[in-house]
């Protein structure tokens, strides 16, 4: 088989770029092996061992870039090398380091390119974020502020500035929104429809908007507020502005509010504004007292699944009690599977191990599992009444463990698990070695911005974990759910099928998944 070589003198690229380009070359038709490396002696030695060294590359110096391709025929090898320049440019551009790319580098330049834009998505280092958001608001733009590490003082000032201009300031730390049908950040592809959402919880917004679409309805607007909006200091300014916007929007027939329990004074203000909207409002304040919500004439729900089910029913003019009952009873349909899984467990397998990429899902699962015997531990505990914090570096034995792998301690210096599942995959694999784990509980989040094949990644890790458990004479039941839609780039049904093929019990919601995990543990005990 022929080897073709190309030498680029004094061409410098970082290793990410070179690895990406080598991967692209390998994927080309007829290419058997490919390497793109600096021409150091060590690397030339590797090329020789891999039968990729030619007389041309043997003469390269350490400051030359060497591309070598082993292919089925000359044509395939030359075609691959012909694509090299384009791949190098594209990869470097994708890595964000292309000096020549014609992308605007300032807000002013971006507005010159798109003078009709009315919303800015801002994702810069926290210390610059407030300045950029202020500038966007001053230019008359609504803002989705993806960045975190913005001070409370800046957040208050930005939201006041937005309110004074009749604009929305979504965030800081707002990971998702759907505005006029356009998904921003980590958004799912949902049809447009009568349900308007205002959410302080990113994956909560994704879950409800996807579930609304799965139930055959659609979303008018989905407004992210950022996780701190309903604190006493911020006062729910964006949620109040969002309710007002949905109140004025004729396409919105039903409003859904999603959050962890707000500060008490903020709760009263938000519920009053929701009541004044004159539209039916479903309130999903996870773990909050439903009595106060009911008293305000609004509809309390306790899970994200219920929020979607009730909102869709209301939009169709149906009564809203039966969807709640249906959601609560759904897990019972899985009882035979739960019993079968429980029957195969060893006596010491007694605990649920939840590895979540979505923070809201982790929170919701803890609320659902709060009454399990033996106690619940989490790196993101809900409250002392629900779960215990995991001490630093402690290994928890003898308890249920529910982890939010998107929390800061797992994401410093690495991508969020919705983008890069490698850490979670390793942790899934390790679960197979833990003799106490009875059920592994997982979420898989689809949508724009998420990993292109998250279920495929999880499925490989599940297989590895189950093989490790089997080697020790155990089974490892896995309960999973996928947050997403058929229209998402990853396609919901394909992703669910991958998990099922790996032996996971795949259910439609996080609440059902958590309850089925609890059923398995209860049946076993």
């Amino acid at each position: 088989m022929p080897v073709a070589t190309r030498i680029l003198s004094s061409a410098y690229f970082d290793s990410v770029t070179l690895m990406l380009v080598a991967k692209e070359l390998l994927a080309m038709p007829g290419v058997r092996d490919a390497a793109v490396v600096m021409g150091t002696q060590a690397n030339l030695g590797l090329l020789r061992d891999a039968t990729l060294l030619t007389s041309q590359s043997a003469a390269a110096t350490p400051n030359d870039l060497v591309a070598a391709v082993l292919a089925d025929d000359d044509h395939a090898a030359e075609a691959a090398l012909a694509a090299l320049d384009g791949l190098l440019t594209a990869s470097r551009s994708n890595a964000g380091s292309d000096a020549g790319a014609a992308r605007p580098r300032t807000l002013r330049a971006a507005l010159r390119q798109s003078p009709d834009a009315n919303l800015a998505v801002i994702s810069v280092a926290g210390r610059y974020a407030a300045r950029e958001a202020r500038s966007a608001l001053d230019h008359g733009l609504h803002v989705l502020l993806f960045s975190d590490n913005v001070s409370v003082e800046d957040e208050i000032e930005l939201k006041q500035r937005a309110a004074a201009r009749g604009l929305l300031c979504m965030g800081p730390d707002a990971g998702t929104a759907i505005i006029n049908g356009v998904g921003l950040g980590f958004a799912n592809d949902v049809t447009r429809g009568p349900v308007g959402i205002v959410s302080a919880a990113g994956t909560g917004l994704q879950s409800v908007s996807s579930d609304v679409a799965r139930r055959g309805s659609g979303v008018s607007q989905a407004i992210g507020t950022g996780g701190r909006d309903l604190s006493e200091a911020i006062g729910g300014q964006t949620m109040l502005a969002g309710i007002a916007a949905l109140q004025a929007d004729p396409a919105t027939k039903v409003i859904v509010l999603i959050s962890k329990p707000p500060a008490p004074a903020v709760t009263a203000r938000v519920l009053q504004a929701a009541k004044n909207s004159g539209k039916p409002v479903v309130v999903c304040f996870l773990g909050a007292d439903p009595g106060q919500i009911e008293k305000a004439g609004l509809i309390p729900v306790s899970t994200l699944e219920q929020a979607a089910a009730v909102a869709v029913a209301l939009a169709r003019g149906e009564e809203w009690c039966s969807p709640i009952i249906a959601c609560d009873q759904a897990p019972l349909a899985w009882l035979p599977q739960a019993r079968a899984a429980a029957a195969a467990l060893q006596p010491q397998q007694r605990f649920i191990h939840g590895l979540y990429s979505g923070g809201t899902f982790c929170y919701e699962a803890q609320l659902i599992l709060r009454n399990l015997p033996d106690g619940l531990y989490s790196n993101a505990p809900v409250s002392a009444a629900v779960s215990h914090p995991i001490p630093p570096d402690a290994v928890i034995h003898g308890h249920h463990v529910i982890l939010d792998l998107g929390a800061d301690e797992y994401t410093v210096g690495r991508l969020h698990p919705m983008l890069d599942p490698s850490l979670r995959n390793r942790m899934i694999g390790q679960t197979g070695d833990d003799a106490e784990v009875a059920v592994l509980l997982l979420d898989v989040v689809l949508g724009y911005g998420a990993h292109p094949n998250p279920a495929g990644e999880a499925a490989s890790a599940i297989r590895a974990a189950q093989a490790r458990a089997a080697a020790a004479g155990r089974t490892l039941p896995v309960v999973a759910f996928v947050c997403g839609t058929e229209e998402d780039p990853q396609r919901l049904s394909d992703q669910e099928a991958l998990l099922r093929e790996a032996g996971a019990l795949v259910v439609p919601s996080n609440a059902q998944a958590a309850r089925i995990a609890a059923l398995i543990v209860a049946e076993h005990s």
Partner: protein
Amino acid sequence: MSIQSISLRIAPVLHHPQFTAQVESAFADACNLLTPDGVMLALVSHTIGNGPLNAVLSHFSEPTRLSAGDWLRGNGQTLWLPRGQQLSLTQAALWQPIPAYHHLAAQPETVTANIAWLRGYLPLHAPPASFAAIASASASGAFGNSHSLALGQMQAERLAAGLLHAYAAADLPALHGYAGQLAGLGPGLTPAGDDWLAGWLMGLHTRAGLMSATVHPLSTADAAAAVLSAAQGRTTRLSLAFLQAAADGAANEAWHNLITTLSKPSKRLLRAATAQVMAHGATSGSDMLAGFLAAFNNHSP
């Protein structure tokens, strides 16, 4: 526009009244320069921050954007860029690139415990394509499934083990041989083999700071000289410059923070400092950390 801080290592070069340098490579947050005398230095943004070869700019944006081949000139007080821009050097603070290793000697038990913790942390968190992840099953598919580079990972493991045995036996020729084979091994501007060697040299400096009376027959200077001489001509210019800095114990801000944190009992701080080190490059930070920890393993008396 101005330069805010300059590493002591490159300050004499940048402050030379007849400074000239050519841009060797330019990235989003850094621009590597080469002087006619062969000295490497870099103009960088705050995102990169202080480092042994770095001058940190007050603003690293469109006007300062340079391309490979551009020439820069300076008179010791001002740096002239192509297209007429100027950078003032007069307000620049001088930054010491060598961490205070000797402070570690005051807390030997804490440092030892933290090193042990790092040994557990690194394999779990290292990216699959790094040397640090070689031993774990997750390394499959590393380097984009390129057979040649997967081969490189395995070779690196063998060579690193050989180098550590050579050091333990105080066998300088063998150490030189293994270092020469590791130098330049792997993709990118700073090949992973160099990153591992740089980390190992940093580890030797840290050990020396930790133990006031070292009993090893090879001094850190001996080992560093052997590595440098072996790497000469076998790796990229930039990577060799980093190796030279590591041989002197010089490191970037993230490493300064980690070295300082080693003597503190807080695992939260240690985790944050470690993550900062590992965030450098695709695998560079993890590869350096793997080399650093190797300096404390059983092969090293």
